[in-house]
Structure formats: C-alpha cells, structure tokens
C-alpha cells in the first residue's frame, strides 16, 4: 500500500476532500430517490426539500401505466443474458484454439481479429444497419444480440488466460482419448472460471447499458430495452420529473444490486479490462 503521504499531508483535509467528492457522487442519485417518492405537488415545491411529506408510489404506477417498463426490463435481461452466454462460449472456444492448437496462419488470423479493436463501432454502424435489414432482422431482439455475440477483446482476454494452463494437463487428457472439444469443455473451461466471470460481468454490464445501436434498429415499443425505453419516455414526458425519476430508479436497482453483490470483483473487472473508456 502506498500510504507514503500519510505523515506529511493533513489527514483531516484529505478525508474532507474525499468525502465532499463522495457526496457529489451520490447526491444526484439520492435526489432521484427523493423525487421518485414525492407526489407531483411536492416535486414542484420550491425551495426543494429532501424528505417527502406524504411519500407515495404514485410515480411508479404512473410510469408503468405510460410505458411497459416490465417488458423493457425483460427484453434487456434476455438480450444481455444471450449476449453474455454467446460471448463466453465463442470467445473461450476461439481463445483455446489461438492459445493451444496448431494451425498455420493462426497468428495472422488473431491479428485480424484484434484489428477490430482499432475501429470505432460508429464507423461500421451504417453498413451493419443495412446488413441487419437485408437479413430481415430489423426491429428485432436478435438484431441486438447478433452483432455482439463475439468480441475481439473477449478472445484476446480468454487467450491470455488459457495460454498459462500447463500443456501437460492437455496432453494427458489427449492420451486418455479426449477430443479437442472435450478438452475445452472438461479441462479448459473449469480452469478459467475466474476469467470467465470477469468477462461475463463486463459483457453483461456493457450490453445492459447499450443505447446507440438499439436506438437505430428498434422501432416498436414491445422490443425496446430499458435504456431505450426510458429515453423514449423522457422525450415524451420531459417535464414530468416524478415519473421520470421513478423510471430511472427502477432501471438502476438491478445494476446497483449486482454492484453491491460483486463490489471489488466488478471494480477490478471493469478497470483491468479498460472497458469503460
């Protein structure tokens, strides 16, 4: 631990700075919660106050009446789960080939895959949109899954971990008559459990927060994800802050629960992989 400044800086000042910063981090969310449980008259009250005088869940019923939030949530859950499972499977499978199997030209192939990381998504979004429509998948949940089912980063990440698995372990399984897929399934996957969890966390989070792509391909409300649906709601009722904050609250609860459950694990995953730039 680099607690080198300890004796030199005034600790109190440091704690004050950090606490002020921490308040800045949470107060928008607390204000969101306070507003979500206020009746309209109290939302409009000025000067504003924190504790609702007559707490109510009217904003929640209101937002559910006007927008099918439960469908948005289900769609998002479905899409994010599918994307995550597909990414885990295909990236680890490819990572195994790149790390351990013989194939002429596999390094060039690997570089071609990594090349994707240099190209921003927005550069390919137009052709991707045309392609998805050509395949007849416009305005469908499949359109939200397909372009993200394998990631260059995921393959790279899996390869790094699989490469450190001892070859003797794999050879022993081969001698026992295990096929390559069997080795992948029974030996590789169990030994990279921790890396798989990391990849699962960042993929799921990333998929959950997607906005640009769903905005482009999804038209009908029944196919919307939670983020898209909420933005849609915000556009329509941009002065109704009570229901808006209730919607924001609903969308945040699953994320925060997962964050509390995984905490350091999640912080590590996201920062080690540099996903959120």
């Amino acid at each position: 631990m680099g607690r080198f400044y300890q004796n030199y800086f005034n600790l109190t000042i440091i704690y004050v700075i950090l606490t002020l910063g921490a308040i800045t981090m949470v107060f928008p969310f607390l204000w969101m919660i306070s507003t979500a449980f206020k009746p309209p008259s109290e939302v409009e009250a000025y000067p504003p106050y924190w504790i609702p005088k007559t707490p109510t869940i009217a904003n929640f019923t209101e937002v559910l009446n006007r927008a099918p939030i439960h469908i948005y949530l289900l769609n998002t859950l479905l899409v994010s789960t599918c994307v995550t499972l597909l990414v885990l499977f295909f990236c680890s499978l490819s990572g195994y080939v790149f790390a351990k199997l013989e194939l002429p030209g596999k390094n060039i192939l690997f570089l071609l895959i990594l090349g994707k990381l240099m190209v921003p998504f927005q550069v390919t979004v137009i052709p991707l949109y045309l392609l998805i429509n050509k395949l007849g998948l416009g305005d469908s949940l499949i359109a939200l899954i397909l372009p993200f089912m394998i990631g260059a980063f995921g393959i790279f990440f899996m390869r790094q971990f699989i490469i450190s698995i001892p070859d003797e372990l794999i050879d022993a399984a081969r001698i026992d008559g295990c096929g390559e897929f069997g080795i992948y399934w029974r030996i590789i996957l169990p030994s990279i459990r921790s890396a798989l969890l990391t990849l699962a966390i960042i993929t799921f989070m990333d998929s959950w927060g997607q906005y640009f792509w769903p905005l482009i391909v999804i038209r009908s409300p029944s196919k919307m994800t939670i983020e898209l649906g909420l933005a849609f709601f915000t556009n329509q009722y941009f002065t109704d802050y009570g229901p808006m904050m209730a919607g924001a609250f609903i969308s945040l609860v699953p994320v925060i629960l997962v964050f509390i459950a995984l905490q350091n694990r999640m912080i590590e995953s996201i920062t080690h992989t540099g996903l959120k730039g």
Partner: protein
Amino acid sequence: MKLKKTRIKKYITAILMLSPTIVFFILFVYYPIVWGFRLSFGEFNLLSGTFKFVGLENFKRVIRDPVVLSSLKNTVTFSAFTVILGTIISLLLAVCIESIPKYGGTYKFIYFIPVVSPMVTVAMVWLWLYEPRIGYLNYLLSLLRIPPKQWLHDPSLALISIAVMSMWKGLGFHIVIFSAGIKGISKEFYEAAQIDGANNWQLFRYITLPLLSPVIAFVFITSTIGAFQAFTQMNVMTKGGPVGATKTIVYAIYEYGFQFYRMSYASAIAVLLFIIIMILTLAQLKLFRE
C-alpha cells in the same frame, strides 16, 4: 504418411472450432468496414438500393459542411474539457485515497457508482438537476445568491453542462486505475526521497508523476477516444441542441444516416471520425513515449 494425416486432422479440428468466429468476423466486422469505406466514396440510394461511385465528392462536401465543422468543434471542446479536467481531478482523488490508512475501499466503491450506472439513467437524473426553474443546482446557486442558469438551454453553457456530467460519471473509473498505478510504485522511492528532505509536492512531482506517466497516457488515450464517441448523453439531454451547441461527430453521423437517411454522406463522416481517432491514438502514444 500417417503423421501427415493426423496433422491435417488436427488442423481441421482447429478450423472447425474457429469457424463461427471466422464467419462472424467476416460478416459483422470486415464486410461492414469495407462496405462503409465503399459507401463513403459513392451515392447510395436507400429506397432503390442503387449505388453510384462519385469519388471524393462526399468528402469534399463534408469538410465544408458547417454542421460537420461545428460538430467537430463541439467534440473537441467536449473531449478537452472531460479528459483534461477529469484526469487532473481523478489523479488528485486517487492520491488522496492512497494516502489514507482506512476506508480507501469504501471511497472507491462510492466513486464507482456512477461508472456502473447506465448513461441514459444518469442523463435523466442530471436533466432533473439541471432543470432551470426548480432544479436542485439552481437552488444551490440561489443559496449562494447567484442568479439561476439555463444549464441546458443556453447555447454557451449546454456543452459544458453535459461535459461536467460526463466527467462526473467517469471519475471513479480513472481513480481506480490511478490508485492501482500508485500502489505499484515501490515505497522505497518515497522513503529515500523523504530522507533527503523532499516535501509532499516534490514527492508527487518527482516520483508519483513520472512513474505514473504510462498510466496517465493510458487514461488520456482511452478517455479521449471515448469522449470522441460521445452521443448518448447529448441525445437524451439536449437532442444536440440548443441550435446545435451539443451536436457531436457521432451525433452528425446519426442525424445524417438515420434521420435524413443519407447513408453515403454519413459514412464519409464516419470515415473522418475513424481517421481522427487513428491519428489521436498514434499522436498520444508518441507524445507520452518521449
């Protein structure tokens, strides 16, 4: 002979296991990249599906288009603000976190909450904070006897307002990266410097800063690239307005491509973005290597 056969069999297995990935990358990565470049050199009609090659015509128009130029300017302003200020503040906070004996983890957790929160949700919450009439920020200003501001409705303020929110959202991410970097610096450097009578500022300036420069370079590069792709918060909070004050490059791509359906023209802007991001990455890498 038999050896050759088993080897070929090995290759076939490998190819089979890799085939979904190969197909995916051809179909969803390389085909769109090539197609995107091709689109930018032509005129594509979405309705009839016809394509006519026009050479550099789109690019000639793009670099004179006032909408594109102003979106470029907005993107640069936005990125400079979020990246420079965000890096300084997060570095400061990371040093603070690494200096305290206890609760470092708790602070990291709190600073990380906006990072894990989806952008749309965060943008909605800040929309409410920035509300001009009864919003909480103007209320706080009124306590300081400062007249209310039209945060998102004032063309000279809107972009900065969104930049402040975006910086706020990304702080925790950079703090955690910086504090991991600071932890990696050997304590002996500090002890030696302290024996030589170095003060806090000198410790920071001559030990932390130089040894952390690769990490700072990483944060600079990733956050600049991220900032250049900003779109969601603008789309939710201002729709690119007022009078285009918060329109970014990606917003211009979105507008031309998916609201006016001028796919070729939008592709030319996308190619421009691609080139800018390439140059940025190379320039920054070079800058920090020296």
